[in-house]
């Protein structure tokens, strides 16, 4: 069970003045059950990359294997792939359309050909998983706040019971509390089920906290693909491409330079606190 990309290239509007080589020779393997973070500057090709994972856009060249099966081969069941790889887009406004939240969340399961009862059952389960309060189930999706819309949109994809959940900046435009809530909820989902989670984000802090592995994109190329602390060790290079390591990385490096024997590889504030406490003792 894995997703494997081989030498993926994608060019937007080839042969026109707007031609844009958005992905360059991307090769990756994402094993099942992993929590992967994708980060990169604006326009580095993150959204383009993840839209390949469920076949929404077709690579200009290169191959994608889902469970060792080439998704570009003739007769490959794209519909099945799309129900296994659930993709939540950046803006919930792009997918909410039904008269109430419940019906909207049912849209995915209904397309999978489930009966009405099964749809409702799955919708309820998904809505509970994302932590949307019950009083909103019958509300119009357009009356919800930004954070609630986002939850409804995630539920709409979760209700299809995907094996892989891909989220494109699920925290954009949320307040710190809303952001933490959503990310906690996603991390909880990841622990509860054996789902693979692929999270696109602009925040190193967020990704450092949850991801097992970080993929750093730079101008359409994969720059790093490693565990968080190994990626953050390159914080100088990250700065050069307009990113930054989490602030704790800087603090730990500073402390070490000034003679405190700490491990500079820690990635979260909690770990850093423990590490400093240990060094001070």
């Amino acid at each position, binding site marked *: 069970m894995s997703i494997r990309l081989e030498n993926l290239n994608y060019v937007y*509007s080839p042969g*026109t*003045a707007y031609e844009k080589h958005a992905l360059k020779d991307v090769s990756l393997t994402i094993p099942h059950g992993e929590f992967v973070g994708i980060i990169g500057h604006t326009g580095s090709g993150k959204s383009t990359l993840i839209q390949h994972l469920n076949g929404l856009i077709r690579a200009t060249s290169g191959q994608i294997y889902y469970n060792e099966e080439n998704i570009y081969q003739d007769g490959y069941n794209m519909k099945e792939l799309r129900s296994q790889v659930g993709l939540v*887009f950046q803006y919930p*406004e792009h*997918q*909410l*359309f039904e008269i109430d939240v419940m019906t909207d969340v049912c*849209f995915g399961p209904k397309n999978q050909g489930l009966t009405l009862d099964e749809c409702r059952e799955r919708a309820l389960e998904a809505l509970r998983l994302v932590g949307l309060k019950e009083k909103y189930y019958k509300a119009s999706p357009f009356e919800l706040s930004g954070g609630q819309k986002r939850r409804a949109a995630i539920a709409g994809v979760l209700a*299809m019971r995907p094996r892989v959940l891909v989220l494109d900046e699920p925290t954009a435009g949320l307040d710190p509390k809303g952001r933490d809530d959503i990310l906690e909820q996603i991390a909880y989902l990841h622990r509860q089920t054996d789902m693979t989670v692929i999270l696109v984000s602009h925040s190193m802090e967020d990704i450092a906290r949850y991801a097992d592995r970080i993929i750093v994109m730079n101008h359409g190329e994969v720059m790093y693909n490693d565990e968080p602390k190994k990626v953050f060790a390159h914080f100088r290079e990250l700065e050069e491409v307009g990113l930054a390591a989490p602030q704790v990385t800087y603090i730990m490096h500073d402390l070490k330079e000034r003679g405190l024997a700490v491990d500079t590889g820690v990635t979260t504030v909690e770990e850093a606190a423990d590490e400093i406490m240990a060094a001070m003792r």
Partner: protein
Amino acid sequence: MIRDITIGQYYPAKSVLHRLDPRVKLVSTLLYLISLFLFKSIPGYIMATLFLFGVIRVSKVPFKHIVKGLRAVVMLLMITVIFNLFLTRDGAVLFHKWIFTITEGGLRTAVYMTIRLIYLIIGSSLMTFTTTPNELTDGIEKLLYPLNKLHVPVHEVAMMMSIALRFIPILLEETDKIMKAQIARGADLESGNMIQRAKSMIPILVPLFVSAFRRANDLAMAMEARCYRGGEGRTKMNPLHYKTRDRIAYIVVIVYVIGVFFVGRYVPLGIWIF
């Protein structure tokens, strides 16, 4: 996907044509379109062709790009050909079977109407390829300015046009994203009969309308926040002024139109070749 529609979309390049005053391009396009109907003989067509190709060369828009834009109107061209071919009864009969009759006159009209239509479309799309929507509405506003005296709200109409034009690519992009979001949830947009397909558009149309209204609202608010009060007393950041190259362009076009008129009328090569 849907963003690959090229007909009439601005094509950025550095050419004299791109730099010309939009009024020149508007008037010249109109003159060119009229000129296509001023002649009926081969020398006229040769001149119109040479002129068009000359302008294409100057515009630096790749020929391939122009032809791609034509693909969208193939149906229209086909209909023109079929109607002219079978419905014109004029001259010797070339082909007759059951209810289909092709006459020499029909064939001639079909060929010439097709050429005219293609030139018409290329001519006007050359204008939109080389002029940004903003320049275009600026040009229209200035050209129609005298109508203000007749209480035609020229500025408001031009503003509406430029907003509408600006919204087209935004809404196309939005449609693309919405379609992807719904396809990702298993929406089936292609199969089924008419009614099913119309129904499957609902998940696309609802978010699209919601977003269009939201954007319109935001825009109105943003314009008001910047004290927009309509055209009265409003000045331009880049007022349009004719420069030497604009005057030369006018002269070139007028010479062409007069030339094509006389050549089309009086050069005795009125033979039709098929």
